[in-house]
């Protein structure tokens, strides 16, 4: 009797962990670090800054996530955001384009870049990893050509532009954009047939085809979405940095992938998903900030980053396996 009760609660626990593992980790991180650094860790300044800078990572993670629902890698997102932010500043500073027009141009460029990526993958049938890697190199070339490898300082950007990433009633506006984008993506992926189509392609492209889903069009759409998200992230990054450096961007690639893949272990374990991605980005950012505030040696953060990735994923893989085992056992 007691045995089955503990058995049942253990089951419930593993089920809960496998779905909400990241949320638990997030809560732990918040509790531990705000106990250790009560005055600074949860200060509005720190939260505001973290949310603002992590918004970029979150948007890029979404950009990675979209094609990844269909099982395609987009390795160009890092260089793409770099080009977008260079263009955004460059058009304003060098060509005196008003910022809303510059933003439109950057978004249009993002759409075209996504389209090319998609066409390379669907029409030319190039492996997505390599096509987008090549594309990334081309984009990096364009950034460097446009700037001649030099920084474009944006000393006289209009307040309306720099204010894009400011605060309203103490709330970082950038985080609101991410929330809106997240909700839209969530609705598309979880509540619309087109989103289900993307997931179906990701798990079995052949079955998708036989079910009448036009695989090329869906994949193309995913890459275009990814391009637009990169452009949006680039616009916001330009507003945050207020200066354009062509080398910016590549450093986002791995964190974006880390966010998506770590996120795929929670909420909808085993599949990349919007909420998991957001949670993962937050967990990585807040834990990292906490470690920095503790004044640990600089290399500790690398250990921490690697460690949290591995531990969080093992935990949720373990929980998901247990859960699946129980499901199978129960059904046989």
């Amino acid at each position, binding site marked *: 009797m007691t045995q089955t009760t503990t058995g049942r609660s253990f089951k419930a626990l593993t089920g809960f962990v496998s779905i909400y593992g990241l949320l638990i980790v997030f809560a732990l991180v918040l509790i531990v670090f705000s106990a250790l650094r009560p005055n600074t860790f949860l200060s509005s300044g720190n939260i505001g800054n973290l949310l603002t800078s992590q918004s970029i990572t979150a948007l890029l993670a979404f950009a990675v996530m979209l094609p990844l629902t269909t099982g395609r890698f987009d390795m160009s997102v890092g260089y793409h955001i770099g080009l977008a932010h260079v263009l955004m500043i460059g058009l304003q500073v060098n060509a005196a384009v008003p910022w809303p027009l510059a933003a439109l141009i950057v978004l249009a460029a993002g759409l075209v870049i996504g389209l090319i990526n998609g066409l390379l993958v669907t029409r030319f049938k190039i492996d997505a990893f390599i096509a987008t890697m090549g594309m990334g190199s081309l984009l990096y070339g364009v950034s460097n050509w446009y700037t001649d490898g030099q920084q474009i300082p944006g000393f006289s950007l209009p307040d309306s532009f720099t204010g894009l990433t400011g605060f309203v009633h103490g709330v970082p506006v950038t985080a609101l954009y991410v929330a809106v984008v997240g909700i839209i993506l969530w609705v598309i992926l979880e*509540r619309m*047939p087109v989103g*289900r189509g993307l997931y179906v392609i990701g798990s079995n492209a*052949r079955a998708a085809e*036989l079910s009448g889903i036009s695989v090329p069009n869906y994949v193309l759409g995913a890459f275009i979405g990814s391009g637009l998200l990169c452009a949006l992230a680039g616009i916001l990054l330009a507003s945050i940095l207020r200066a354009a450096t062509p080398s910016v961007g590549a450093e986002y690639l791995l964190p974006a992938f880390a966010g998506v893949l770590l996120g795929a272990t929670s909420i909808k374990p085993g599949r990349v998903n919007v909420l998991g991605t957001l949670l993962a980005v937050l967990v990585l950012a807040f834990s990292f900030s906490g470690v920095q505030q503790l004044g640990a040696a600089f290399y500790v953060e690398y250990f921490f980053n690697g460690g949290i990735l591995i531990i969080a994923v093992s935990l949720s893989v373990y929980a998901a396996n247990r859960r*699946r085992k129980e*499901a199978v056992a129960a*059904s046989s």
Partner: protein
Amino acid sequence: MTDTQPLLDVRGLTKRFFGSLALDNAAFSLARGEIHALVGENGAGKSTFIKILAGVYDADEGEILLEGARVDPRSQSLPLAFVHQDLALVDDLSVCENIALVAGYPRKAGLIDWRAVMRQTSAIYETMRIPPVDPNRLVATLSTPEKAILNIVRTLAHTPKVLVLDEPTAALPEQDAHRLFDAMRRMRDQGASIIYVSHRLHELFGLADRITVFRDGRRVHTAAMNEITGSEIVEQMLGRAVDLAHRAHAPVRDEEPVLKVEGLVVDRRGPLDFTLRPGEVLGLVGLRGGGQEAVGRTLFGAKRAEAGTITLAGRTLDHQDSIGGRIKAGIVLLAGDRTSESTFPAMSLIENLFPNPLIRGRSAFELVSPAAERRAAKERLDRFDVRPRNEGAMIDWLSGGNQQKVCLARWLEADGKVAILEEPTAGVDIGAKIAIHRMLREAAAAGRAILVISSDLEEVATLCDRALVIDRGRAAGELVGERLTIDGLIALSTLGAPTAAAPEHQAPKGADAPHLGG
């Protein structure tokens, strides 16, 4: 529009795959409210024809007329529904979502209504009068026959004008096949027309109204079903006559059993006892969920036994043995789910024949001569009559039946004492089936013990020396010699179940109960 105008009329359909003709000026015509059987040997072009109707492939030439109007399945959505030969299921999505993928997503305010998606599951299983499985179960956790059923029922959600079924019964238990046939008849009576592809010719009599035979990508014959005999169909298919009444039981040898299974419990079902002698072909049949697949997998080391002993050639096997260990000990297994468990896509026929040379007694770091391998592969393709006979071709280029022959060749040619074959001739045409049965008998005669786990009762009846009917992991009965007939098997497998209240439309509770859980 006249009454004689066919519902669907296909003319001059030609499809080249990289230059080779899969369909060569093929024609087909489907009348209103008929069940029309489409048959032909492996690679005759049946699936290609169907995929063109479905808009999966583009035809090179030819026209498709639906109710007299020319249509293009590639760009139009037509009132046709398909059950394809390859299971088009998404393993890591739930049952209800796999259903919605084909049957459509019920929506509320433009957004998917997930509750309704789950609700439609049971309604859809009702069309085949089969108790539904838990809508939230992952498809990956379904057994092969359960997947086959799911693959079929989701197409039956809406009554289309035309329903096309490509070998739906290849992995379907006999009882479920009958439920399918009933559903098909009901749909026909409601006015639907059905194209039905099968290699199990005996099913067609009493089911189909007309039959069309394809050979080498062409239509060679169309007839009313009641005006044609089985051997005529086979002659049209193969271009030669074949003795359908093949049945060659070898005298049972009086040797010590090579395999002894005692008290075997798997997945909490059992216990099971049986023995297998060298030279014997033993069939394991059962209801869906009877556990006969699990028995084979356990013997092969792909599943863990919970209790019992397995003795091979006098040696008790360790339940912790790996698959590799069991192969070394002399047990091989041909998996039933060809696409997900047997073939290696994007790899050549050589590599598909010899994926693991270790099982041919080689060591991991031994040099292998490509010329010898090519020779060995060629010889096997010849023996199993695989077409195209090109050992460098990718497995993906072969028709379903030919892929099956390659997988069979992989295992039948491996050394060993016991061969476990799940659905050994699934999707294989009648001519090849007879040839394969002959090869299996030869292998048995040479001293192999063969365990056939098949849902094709006709196959079990003609091929096996002895058959065990498995119910919930236990032997419900045994049929030997003259008593081993299709009728005998059906009788035993339904009577053998304890609560066989409504054998026709209701699966025995005991066997199905687990599927309701989850």
